[in-house]
């Protein structure tokens, strides 16, 4: 039996661009260039490695996002994933983590899965909780925040580096995994991979296909509300001096003046 892997990837505004909020206080995804979240590249990479070690595996990349989110799917396909599913619907605009996770869970069940692989966090929302929520919704084990992962004999094993300890974890499939940016560099798509990706299937689903009503998701359906977003005032320009041999002393004097010494 083939190992069915679903990788959840998010299309996010480029962190090096001018990220900001739209008028309705949702993340502006239109006026800032987007890309496949760098942290989800690690998820695609680990899925590829797991599939290379398995006798027979198929990788589906899945995203919930606007039309341009296709770019993220294409990138994952050009890295080597087999096919893609894009959940796209105007009514999804403004959906929060509880809504997104509900939609992802339905799409994952519809696709069929043995293993779900996620990134450690999205680079825009940075919550880092969606994988745990997905596991809760799907009713399968969560094996999250792994810096090492492997799948053998229907079991997933991994290493989780926590604040106070490093843990070795084990769970039976099906399961939801998330991997950190310590899990190993993601590969670059090869020219061949980029060409091949153009022919790989991308299935589009809307809320109807997943049996959701418009008011269960989107800004109206959200469980949280942003009331205010204020740009952080720029820091007042400080003093920058060139070291002419006295830099250490000058800095110490500054620290003393601010009562740190």
């Amino acid at each position, binding site marked *: 039996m083939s190992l069915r892997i679903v990788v959840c990837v998010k299309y996010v505004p480029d*962190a090096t661009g001018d*990220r900001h*909020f739209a008028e309705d206080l949702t993340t502006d995804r239109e006026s800032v260039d987007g890309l496949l979240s760098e942290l989800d590249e690690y998820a695609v990479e680990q899925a590829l490695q797991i599939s290379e070690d398995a006798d027979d595996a198929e990788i589906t990349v899945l995203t919930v996002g606007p039309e341009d989110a296709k770019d993220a799917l294409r990138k994952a396909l050009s890295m080597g994933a087999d096919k893609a599913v894009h959940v796209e619907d105007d009514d999804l605009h403004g959906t*929060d*983590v*509880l809504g997104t996770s509900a939609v992802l869970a339905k799409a994952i069940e519809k696709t069929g899965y043995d293993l779900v692989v996620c990134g*450690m966090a999205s*680079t825009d929302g*940075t*919550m*880092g*909780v969606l994988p*745990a929520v997905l596991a*809760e*919704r799907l009713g399968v*084990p*969560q094996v*999250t*925040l792994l810096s090492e992962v492997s799948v053998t004999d229907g079991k997933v094993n991994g290493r989780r*580096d926590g*604040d*106070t*300890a490093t*843990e*070795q*974890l*084990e*769970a039976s499939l099906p399961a939801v995994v998330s991997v*950190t*940016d*310590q899990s190993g560099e993601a590969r670059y798509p090869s020219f061949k991979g980029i060409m091949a990706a153009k022919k790989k299937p991308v299935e589009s689903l809307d809320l109807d296909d997943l049996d959701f009503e418009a008011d269960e998701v989107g800004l109206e359906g*959200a*469980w*949280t*509300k*942003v*009331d*205010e*977003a*204020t*740009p*952080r005032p720029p*820091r007042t320009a*400080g*003093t*920058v*001096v*060139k*070291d002419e*041999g006295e*830099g*250490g*002393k000058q*800095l*110490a004097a*500054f620290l*003393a003046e*601010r009562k*740190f*010494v």
Partner: protein
Amino acid sequence: MAEVLVYVDHVDGAVRKPTLELLTLARRIGDPVAVHLGPGAEEAAKTLGEYGAVKVLAADAAEFADYLVVPKVDALQAAYDAVSPAAVLVPSSAEGKEIAARLAVRIGSGIITDAVDLEAGEAGPVATQSVFAAAFTTKSRVSKGIPVITVKPNSTAPEAAPAAGAVEELAVSFGEKAAGTKVVARTPRESSGRPELTEAAIVVSGGRGVNGAENFHVIEELADSLGAAVGASRAAVDAGWYPHSNQVGQTGKTVSPQLYVATGISGAIQHRAGMQTSKTIVAINKDAEAPIFDLVDYGIVGDLFEVVPKLTEEVKTRKG
């Protein structure tokens, strides 16, 4: 007054500082009820009571250590059912966020993560968050269900406010999913003896400019002269010069100390995300164009191997 559940982060009964901050914030909304899982409840209760816990719901079971996250969600849910609180507050650690989010799904509530401040509001607690690498500050609230909010370390100064804090046993029956993910081995992290990175008043960080694990003692000596924690950029961590647990930034720790000293760090957006809200920022970098200088209160353009040892020396002299 309404009760507010506060999930306790502790090591065998030694309560960690972020929990005291949570108790302090919880009192703005209602009466804090602490939830203590694992050993050491009696010991912890003394501290929890001192900081305002009206009672401590305690459960201890092997499951908490033997399986990942879910047994703790089961227990927090049991506490939620027992108390019917006005809000649930959890420390924003990686595990804390996962526990909180799963609870939120179960009780049909919204969740806010990584709050840096919390106030009472007309429509429920208002959480302040710092987003897009600290470029924006937002105020949000949970609009459906009982608010579940995780709060970052260093969000407020803990204030004592003695309350009864008596321990009550919390009955927990674990669900069938509790044993889904087994912890087959656990290696505790060794303590460096320095302050905890996220809790420290001063952080001294080294980046690629430190140029080797064998040079990090220069950073450590400065840190020790100031009583500071040691941080590192991802470049330094990826190179294997310093442990990942010390990484500052988007995929490491967020720190917000009184003083942040960046040495040999360029100041990439992902690094700034983890230190931009520090009160005073100083940097030492040999490249005058490094973006870190846009953030500094005081910056030295120079070779860190020249500047840092002299700084350490001068700090020691001044401290006597």
